[in-house]
Every structure is written in structure tokens, then in C-alpha cells.
């Protein structure tokens, strides 16, 4: 089954959120696979987390569907999990059709039909698996049956630009969704031998019709910049998705007032702004060098989903060691409510906890009074990704 969610009947033509999610870990024709070996594997191996990652993305959409900008109308899911992933997450078994070329083409065709039913639709595309470049500006996505020896090298592969270009508003699809979100979670490394085959063609997902004016809001988030690798935590999920979920769940949260109410949301612009910080944090922890890039365009920002409230921010408060015994800390929110009272000595120091994003008055108070130190009371904006404060209590 590919169409795992279908609410079109209930929505009756109203704008909806249409997702196509694909994750490939098991490549039968690559080393370690159960099928006949590919004529050339180009150094690629089985993957252990990309199908799991795609599944997590599907679960996230289902969980957050009430907070999406429009109702979740359809979700097409293609998964080619490894045996290890199925052991970790038994729900993967039989949940979705495998991500072969035929299945992908059918799913994409139907997804585009749905997408073009209303201009206010929102589309969501997520692919996790092996990716290869033919040249630096071009991303090829390898499907499950890559390397089966049938057709050319890239017969069982598709190309992101072809997908993207085929989703433009055109004469035959005048009501194409004008908000489109693309996430490509694959390596963009260029095997040196592929440089010799720059003209190798992928399978076209569709014929591209040159459209008229193209003013979609259609950012594409690529997990790795051209020529670099995308990393994954074996048996868990990809770096990119880990950072992406952190951002979606509040790390890229932004706030604005609407109809007198404060609304917290994550949009593609806030995602673009903050995703790099979270990826960098993973890089530091794992000594990796993953980056991401965002292509595509959009005159206005587009909300991906609404948050339930202000995101919680990792907050670190620190007192200089020599002043530990003298300093107590009070943290007040913008409504003048005391949220933290931390007696002296601050323990642990630094003190770590989470604060809801907002403006706070943080006071380092000297109690009992001590001529060696002075009070430090200041206002701060506490925003994701983390907030760090150090008391300035010593006289200069």
C-alpha cells in the first residue's frame, strides 16, 4: 500500500496537505543485498537508517496533522527497510510498498494529481536514501532496484530537478499547489567515475511542461551540499532528520501576533535560519562535517506547522567560581512571575534546565551583601537553540 492516509473524501476538494515520503535502506543489488549484484556498486553499501527516518517523518506528520497549515489530505509512503530496521521498528513490516522505480512513478503521478487540485494545497516531499551527483548542481535519487542491470546506470533513479520542474503551474495544471516543501536527505557525493558519465540520464518521473509565471513558494532543503556526504546514526536516523525534527519541534520556532493572539510556528525561513545550528551541534558531537543547503524560492514565507506554545530552550546559567557562595539567582518572566529561585551556592554550576522561549529578567543577587561583588540584573531574550548566561558580579 502506498496511499497510507486518504482524507480526500472528507475534505471534498478543500485545500489539503499532500505528502510523498520515501525511504530506502535495503538495496538488493548493492553489496550485502539479497539480489543479484549490480554490475558496479560505485562503492555504495546497504543503509541502516534511511527507511526508519522516512517512517519517523510519516509519524511526525500524523502526530502534528492538526497543526499543519491545511488538513492532512493524503500521505503516500514508500519504504524499503533493512532487516535490522524492521527489528527495531516492527511497524515497518508491510506498512508501505517498497520504493522501487515503478512504485515511485505511480506514487509521484498520483501525488501530483492531488497537488494540482487546488492552489492552496501544500505539498511535502521527503526522500532519504542513496543520492549521487552527475554534476555539482544536480541530485540523483537511487531507488531500491538501482543496479538491477536492466537499462542504463541510472534507469532505476530519478532526479530532483525533474520532479521540481514538473510541479510548476502550467496550462494543463493551472491549480497546482503554490506552497511546496522538498527535503532531500541523501549524499551528494560525486563518485569520481560518474564525472566521466555526465550525460547519463535518469528515468523521467514526468514530462516537464514549460509553465508560465513561476512564483511558487518551493524551498528545497538538501541534506548535504554538493560534493559532500550526508551522515546517519546507524539504526537510528539521519543527521539531517535529527536536526530537522529538533527544528520542527521548536528549535526553529518563531512568534507573531495574529488576531490579538500570540502564535508560535515553524516556517521554511525559520528552518533555513536555524537548521545549520543544529546540524553543527551534531557535527561537533560526532566529528562529522555535514552541511545543508536550501534552494528554491518564495516571495513569502510559508508556515510548516504551528507549535503548541513557546518552545523550551536549553538554558545554562553560570556563576564565577569565586562568587559562588555569595550569589543567588532569580529568574522572572515577562509577566513578572518568579520562575526560578536558585539559592547560593549554585549547584550544579553551570546550572542547566529548560525555559520556555521569552523575555526574562535574570538577577544575580548578593546575599548577604558583600563589598567584593555587585548585583547583576538584566533582561534577556531566551530563544532557541540555547541560551547561555554568566553572572557579572565582580567589580571591574
Amino acid at each position: 500500500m502506498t496511499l497510507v492516509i486518504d482524507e480526500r473524501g472528507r475534505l471534498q476538494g478543500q485545500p489539503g496537505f499532500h505528502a510523498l515520503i520515501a525511504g530506502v535502506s535495503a538495496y538488493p543489488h548493492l553489496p550485502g543485498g539479497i539480489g543479484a549484484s549490480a554490475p558496479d556498486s560505485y562503492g555504495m553499501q546497504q543503509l541502516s537508517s534511511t527507511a526508519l527516518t522516512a517512517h519517523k517523518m510519516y509519524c511526525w506528520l500524523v502526530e502534528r496533522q492538526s497543526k499543519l497549515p491545511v488538513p492532512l489530505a493524503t500521505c503516500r509512503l514508500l519504504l524499503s527497510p533493512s532487516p535490522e530496521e524492521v527489528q527495531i521498528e516492527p511497524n515497518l513490516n508491510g506498512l508501505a510498498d517498497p520504493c522501487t522505480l515503478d512504485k515511485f512513478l505511480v506514487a509521484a503521478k498520483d501525488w501530483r494529481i492531488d497537488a494540482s487540485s487546488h492552489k492552496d494545497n501544500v505539498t511535502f516531499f521527503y526522500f532519504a536514501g542513496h543520492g549521487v551527483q552527475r554534476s555539482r548542481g544536480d541530485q540523483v535519487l537511487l531507488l531500491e532496484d538501482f543496479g538491477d542491470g536492466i537499462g542504463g546506470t541510472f534507469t532505476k533513479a530519478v532526479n530532483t530537478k525533474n520532479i521540481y520542474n514538473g510541479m510548476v503551474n502550467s496550462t494543463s495544471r493551472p491549480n497546482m499547489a503554490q506552497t511546496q516543501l522538498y527535503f532531500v536527505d541523501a549524499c551528494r557525493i560525486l563518485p569520481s567515475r560518474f564525472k566521466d558519465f555526465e550525460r547519463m540520464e535518469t528515468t523521467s518521473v514526468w514530462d516537464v511542461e514549460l509553465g508560465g509565471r513561476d512564483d511558487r513558494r518551493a524551498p528545497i532543503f538538501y541534506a548535504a551540499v554538493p560534493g559532500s556526504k550526508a551522515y546517519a546514526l546507524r539504526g537510528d536516523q539521519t543527521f539531517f532528520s535529527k536536526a530537522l525534527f529538533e527544528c520542527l519541534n521548536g528549535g526553529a520556532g518563531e512568534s507573531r501576533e495574529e488576531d490579538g493572539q500570540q502564535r508560535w510556528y515553524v516556517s521554511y525561513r525559520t528552518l533555513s535560519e536555524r537548521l545549520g545550528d543544529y546540524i553543527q551541534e551534531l557535527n561537533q558531537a560526532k566529528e562529522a562535517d555535514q552541511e545543508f543547503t536550501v534552494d528554491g524560492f518564495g516571495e513569502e514565507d510559508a508556515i510548516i506547522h504551528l507549535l503548541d506554545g513557546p518552545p523550551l530552550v536549553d538554558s545554562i546559567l553560570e556563576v564565577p567560581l569565586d562568587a559562588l557562595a555569595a550569589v543567588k539567582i532569580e529568574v522572572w518572566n515577562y509577566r513578572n512571575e518568579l520562575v526560578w529561585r536558585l539559592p547560593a551556592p549554585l549547584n550544579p554550576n553551570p546550572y542547566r534546565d529548560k525555559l520556555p522561549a521569552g523575555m526574562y529578567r535574570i538577577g544575580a543577587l548578593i546575599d548577604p551583601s558583600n563589598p567584593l561583588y555587585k548585583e547583576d540584573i538584566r533582561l534577556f531574550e531566551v530563544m532557541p537553540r540555547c541560551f547561555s548566561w554568566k553572572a557579572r558580579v565582580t567589580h571591574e
Partner: protein
Amino acid sequence: MSKLHFESQFASSELNSLDLPVEVRKPDLSIVARSLSSQPVELAPGTYCVTVKLPAGQQLSGTVQVEEGKEATATLTPEPEVASPHEWQEVQHYILGPSGPSPQASKPVPLPPGPESHLPSFWSFGVEAAEGSGELESLGPERASAKLRGFRGNILLGAYEVKDDQDWLTFMPPGSAEFNVYAVSPGDTKLVQLLQPEVPALNMVLPVSREQGCQLVLMRQPNRFYSLDANLEHGVANTLLRYLQRGLLEQANTISSSNALPAEQLLYQKKREPIAAAVGAYALLRLGDLERLHDWTENLRNYFQWLPDGITIRGEHLARLGEHDQALTIFLDLPSRGLPIFSDGLSYALDRLRLYIRVGERSFERARLSQAQTLLERLQRFAAFVDFRRPLVTFAGIDPGNPSDATPGEDIESYGGLDIAQ
């Protein structure tokens, strides 16, 4: 309502004169205004947070009380933890930021801590060895650790040559072991090449014209190899370029939608600044703001016949408007001007040519498709070696007209060029 003004307090006049995008928030952090630091905003009385996020990732924040009928000023000062170590480094520290590992440096080394996060910069500059350390010193002349060469001409067409003179490049003191800045003079230097032993040569198309120069920045990476970058002469355009590079679209939008980069000034007045205008145009294309592009992309293309990006900007603009036949005609003119200065331009050309070839004779004449194929193949030879992380077209190859990963060997003296100041 009252006016809130903004004042940044950097150490350098260069940074203080920059018009930076500012965000103003209420205590619950809901955004109430986005503006530039030169443009005050009208606010109701209350307490507000004011933030400037810089392209290199640092954030300046402050809170301000606005009272009825009284003008207020929010002062934004870098915290000590994120401040630039030296005044002369501020542009590099806050705008350019430390660049990533050189793509051509294949020697495996530990990677640096995150340079682009909110955390304080991890870069240390000007680290000097202790005196009398007892280390051996080499007798006789030392081999240069790196060299710079300039090229003039049309790289794309293969009609180019290395510049014999070094007048186009002037070292700007003080510099340090990790960080050197050079002034590139206005003139005919189209491309700079960085040569280092045993790693592929790095070429960067220069954002210069007959009237405008730029700053070339060499930064030593943790793996001890240098990387190349450049600051545009136009400060706002330079800042905008870096915001786009880092994905800070909201900040880029604030600059683009203001009058900080007005086409009227950049294109039509006596001191014309086409490179800054090109940056403004790329920003509008990236942000999808086709309305504001008007027809001045055509003027950019026509007024500056030497500017390759005039072609790619106009071509992409027409394509977005659905004028694909005209767009292809424009793109086919690219070889006469050469490689685009900006990576966006090269990407647009590659993507549109591939698309039009794919669409084929359903929409285009065979002869033009053949020309498109030839041009695409020519561009793909470069694209295979371009680092698209960089905003300026940067690619590997000892011979700029024939990009490759080949290394120059240990001895780079025979290539000539300027030795990098140590």
C-alpha cells in the same frame, strides 16, 4: 506611539556604518517590526527586545523601554564572548565568518568546532610560537606555502592568460598567520588562483570591474591549508550576499525590501555599481520577488556588456516569468561574457539549459538546442569541480580553463605569482 532608533557599537567604523537588519519583539517574543538599523520604527510604549543576527552567526541583543512621546535608542553591542579579537578583523569576523574546510584539501585532519553557531567563535588569531623554543630552523630560502596568481580574459571560452604583473593585488596589513587580506584593484583581473603544495589549485572568479575592486581574504584552516574568499566593495551588498549564503532569508528579505540596494542608484547614477546590483537581483530571485525586479534586469544586462551575471540574472528572470524562448536566447549569449561571478548564476544557467534540452523540440528549434547542449557541456566541465557552498564561483584546477583535481606537486615556485605574506 514613539520612535525607536538603533545604534550599533562595533569597534570599527566599517561595521558601524553598515545598515543591518534588526528585529524588534515584544516581551512574549512576538515580532512587531523588522527594519534596518538606519531606519527607526514607531512603537507603542512598552519594553522590547531588539536583535541583530549577523551573517557569521553572532547575535547582538538588547532590551529597551519605549515611553509615550519620547524617542528611544536601542544600543547593540557585541558581547565579549562573541566580539572580534581585533578591530581590523571585524568585517571578516562578523560578516564573512570562518569558512569551512578547503574542498581541495584532501589530507585528513580533525575538523574544527562549529564556526557558524550562536556559540562564541572558536577561531583564534595571531597565535605565535614562543621565543627560543629550541626548534630547528631551515637554512636557505624557504618554499612559499602558497601563491596567488591572477588571470585575465574569458575563462569559459578558453581565451585567457595569467597576469605577469602583481600590481592588481596589495597586501593589507596587519594580517596574521591565520588571516590575510589583500586589496584587489579595479581592472581586468577576472580570476584569482590560490596555489598550495600537494592540493588542487583553487580558482575564484573575482567580483571586480574596471571601476570596482574587492578584498581578497585568505584564511588558514585547521588543516593548515588556506581557503579563499572575498568581500565586495559595496558593504550592504556584501552583507546581503553572506545572509543568503547562510540561509538567513528573513534578514536578506529585510535588506532587499528596503532601499539599501536601490536599483536606481546602482545602475543609473554616475558611480554605477553593477556587481552590487547583481547581488540585489540574485537576492530578489532567491526570494521569489519578481515584481521588484521590474525590467531593470534587462538594463543590467544591456548597460554592462562585460558582466556575465547580467546574462544569468536576466535569463532566470525571464524563465520565472514563463518567457522561456527569450530566456534561452539570453543564456546562449553567456560564452561571450564568460563564467558568472556568482554561484547562483552558474546554477541557474546549468538548471535552465538542462531543462530546455530535456523539453527539446516540443518547445525549441533544433539548432538552438544544439547550441544549448554545447554550452551545457562547457559549463558542466566547470560545475563538476565547483564548490557550490561558496557564493562566488570557486573551482579546482591548475589550468582554470580545464578544471581538475590534479595537484601542483610539492614545489609551486615554477608557477610564478605572488607569495602569500606570512
